[in-house]
């Protein structure tokens, strides 16, 4: 199948009518999860994430009542009764989703000020060499978040989370397409990456099991997503 990579922008400010539509559109499990967040923005992002995933699955011809399960060992979500793999991410104003027929991961993060001590603790020697070569704070933060979304997309794809030491592999981004992965542990699988410029203040990365990655992310607004779901329901 063609990989599906979609992102929704405007996730922090959702009109009431759209919120209620999304709320009613989501599973009970997701509603309960969303109700636990302190900030309404987190609830918005959570509801948009499931709605976006379900829309994409529906678009692929998979029945809307497919169940999302959690692997009890790794905590990685997976689809019951489907061989498709998926991953979702949300940060600030963005929610992203990727669907593929093999292991895949996505991460979006808002760029912010980061302490060098964090890179020292978590990044590999070759990553630190590249990162500490940045001659100003802005470039440092920009490269830090490029590396971080790549690393996070990798650990999400392999379903390990932080139980996979972040310095057991290196991701070295030379540009959005040329990203070297160096594995420092034999047991880790090889993957492919791409960075996407979705915004000047956010970084977005996809990790894939094969080399074929689309050139761009399909971006839509919350209104667009709701409209697409409504149209699908009416057809």
């Amino acid at each position: 199948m063609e990989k599906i990579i979609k992102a929704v922008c405007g996730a922090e400010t959702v009109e009431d009518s759209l919120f209620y539509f999304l709320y009613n559109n989501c599973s009970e499990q997701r509603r309960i999860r969303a109700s636990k967040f302190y900030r309404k923005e987190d609830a918005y992002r959570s509801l948009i994430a499931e709605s976006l995933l379900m829309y994409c699955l529906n678009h692929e011809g998979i029945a809307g009542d497919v169940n999302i399960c959690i692997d009890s060992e790794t905590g990685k979500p997976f689809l019951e009764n489907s061989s498709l793999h998926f991953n979702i991410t949300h940060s600030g104003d963005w929610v992203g989703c990727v669907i593929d027929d093999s292991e895949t991961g996505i991460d979006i993060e808002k760029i912010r000020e980061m302490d060098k001590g964090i890179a020292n603790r978590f990044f590999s020697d070759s990553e630190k060499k590249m990162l500490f070569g940045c001659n100003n704070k802005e470039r440092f933060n920009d490269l830090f978040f490029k590396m971080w979304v790549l690393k996070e997309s990798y650990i999400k794809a392999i379903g390990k989370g932080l139980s996979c030491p972040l310095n057991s592999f290196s991701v070295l981004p030379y540009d959005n397409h040329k990203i070297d992965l160096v594995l420092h542990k034999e047991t880790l699988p090889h993957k492919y990456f791409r960075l996407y410029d979705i915004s000047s203040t956010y970084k977005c990365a996809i990790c894939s099991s094969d080399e074929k990655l689309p050139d761009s992310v399909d971006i839509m607004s919350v209104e667009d997503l709701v409209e697409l779901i409504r149209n699908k329901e009416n057809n």
Partner: protein
Amino acid sequence: MLENDTNLQLSIIDFVNRNFLMNSDAVKYSNADSFMERGIIDSTGVLELVNFIQQTFKITVNDEDLTPENLDSVNNLVSYIKRKKTTGS
């Protein structure tokens, strides 16, 4: 000074409030609340939290310690830091 529970709690709460909640009074949470479930800390926040406790409490957080049981609430952090300070493990 930082060895008793109250001082540890206050130090952690102050860091969390300043760095993840922008000192907002609107967000109230208990010492037992999960940072992740409540949307207080995200994955990047975990890195910042680990950096903070390493620097502030002079302990080394090993890779195998990066679990919700150790890091995902004020209470879990207090127990973890005390254990690391007393036994080193």
